[in-house]
């Protein structure tokens, strides 16, 4: 149906362009330029969302059938919530904590590079980005080697006698660093750090040094200068970084798979399992749709509360 509307709109545009005379053509020029790209997005972004929603309300003809009958099957949604509520909660909780952590780790690094990098600024920025030129999967698998029970970190911690502290902090569980909630959150934090760090850096870098100097000249303490001048000006970066971190993290399944345990699975794992192992496309689609809607709602709410126009 979406496709039909799009085709009508496109046909209308073509008709206008052909019969509308030069004025209409001038008016339509941008549309003509965008047509192929937008058509692609309509076909392979909007139409799939449509078909996702359709399948999420369909039933299968039989267990292994590839035929689906649209039937307003809301039970797919109730199953998504009843069977996978925990996974939804964990997905949002873990990615929320990971987002906070990326700010805590990424902000100071971005700050140091932007204000103290001097002529090494570009080099430092390059250094920060380089790790992410290796494959996402290899990085995550490397973490599972590093955090292994007989791996270097656990050995170091036990030599230093810090295991009990880490157990108390709930980072370690029964002597394990890996296959814990902390490992999943840590993996998410690591993998999405550049998406937080770079936008913050960009917004910090734009800040006019004179503003900070002015604050200092007016006897502001460094802390106050930061709080009243630098930090507010860097908020657009934090805002963009939050979205770029939280959204992919909430849908991720790689970290939970390689670094988690059966009690730390996220909604991404469930969608992947239902879709690519259980052939349960209706329920998988329902979970996808719920994820999409809830993230869109969160993003809208968040932009209303903290948003700026500078996102894109």
């Amino acid at each position, binding site marked *: 149906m979406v496709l039909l509307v799009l085709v009508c709109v496109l046909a209308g545009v073509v008709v206008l362009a052909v019969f509308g005379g030069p004025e209409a053509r001038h008016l339509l020029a941008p549309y003509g330029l965008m047509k192929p790209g937008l058509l692609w*997005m309509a076909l392979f972004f909007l139409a799939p969302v449509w078909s996702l929603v359709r399948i999420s309300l369909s039933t299968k003809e039989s267990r292994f059938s590839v035929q689906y009958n649209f039937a307003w099957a809301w039970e797919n949604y109730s199953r998504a919530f009843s069977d996978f509520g925990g996974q939804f909660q964990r997905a949002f909780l873990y990615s929320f904590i990971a987002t906070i952590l990326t700010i805590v780790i990424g902000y100071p690094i971005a700050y140091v590079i932007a204000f103290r990098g001097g002529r090494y600024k570009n080099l430092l920025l390059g250094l920060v980005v380089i790790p992410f030129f*290796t494959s996402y999967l290899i990085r995550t698998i490397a973490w599972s080697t590093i955090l292994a029970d007989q791996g270097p970190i656990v050995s170091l911690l036990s030599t230093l006698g810090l295991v009990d502290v880490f157990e108390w902090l709930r980072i370690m569980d029964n002597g394990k660093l890996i296959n814990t909630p902390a490992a999943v959150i840590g993996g998410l934090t690591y993998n999405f750090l550049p998406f937080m760090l770079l936008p913050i850096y960009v917004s910090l870098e734009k800040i006019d040094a004179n503003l900070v100097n002015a604050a200092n000249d007016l006897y502001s303490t460094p802390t106050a200068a930061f709080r009243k001048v630098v930090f507010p000006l860097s908020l657009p970066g934090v805002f963009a970084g939050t979205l770029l971190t939280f959204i992919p993290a909430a849908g991720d399944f790689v970290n939970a798979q390689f670094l988690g345990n059966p009690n730390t699975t996220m909604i991404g794992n469930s969608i992947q399992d239902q879709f690519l192992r259980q052939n349960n496309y209706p329920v998988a689609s329902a979970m996808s749709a719920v994820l999409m809607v809830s993230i869109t709602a969160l993003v809208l709410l968040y932009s209303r509360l903290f948003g700026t126009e500078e996102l894109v």
Partner: protein
Amino acid sequence: MNTLRSRIARMSLNVFAGLGLIYLFLPIFFIVLFSFNKPKGKYNIVWQEFTFDNWLDPFSQKSLTAALWVSLRIGALATAISTVLGSMIALALSRRTFKGSSAINLLLVLPLTTPEIVLGSSLATLFLNQTYINFGFVTVVIAHVMFQVSFVALTVRARIRGFDWTLEQAAADLGSTPQRTFRLVTFPLILPGVLAAALLAFALSIDDFIITFFNAGSTATFPLQIYGAARVQIPPQINVLASMVLLFSVALLVVGATRGQRSEAAKAMKRPKIKIRK
């Protein structure tokens, strides 16, 4: 006292950033280290002994090399398509506002604010419902172009925002044909932005796992091959290839950094020239 305190604060911030860098490089260090490991038996998870063998024969794993080749081909094709489509959107958007431009902006941002798993699974439901295209090379290219177009359009638009489009007007006034204007004025102006966007798009395509996973059928891209290998054994060649990609990116970065400064200077020199020629 105040200065001492602020100096400590300064220092600790620098130390924190330094620790942050170490954290970022920890897994990279292990990846490179294990590319020199000589695994005992089939498993490259415990350090055994140092060897150059893996580096001397990085393409010995046939399926891995084949997958890398598939990834490069998909990346090149998808990037070519998405760069053209995305740049066209960016050009259209950046000249003037028109009816519906905010809706199109929203459409461009949507793929970025949608989790990959939703993009991947929804596209898969579309392909599942038809019998014209089988899951494989073509569906992966389609999927990659889909998310690349947004990135390209937004990157190019950000780069060319604030350009002086009256230059085109001037060329037209001086009797230049639209094609000629595009070739001599518009294209050179947008080229750096387009190249940057293409590089980004290519990088995204090469490393994409989640969306590809849902739409690849039995086609194995490099990330999918790694995922498959991770379920059995990770050969050191994976670490070697990953390290090679790393080295290549670093080289690109260095070249880009030095070239970037030069081209800034070149641009400053070139600007008036264009005007004179027209």
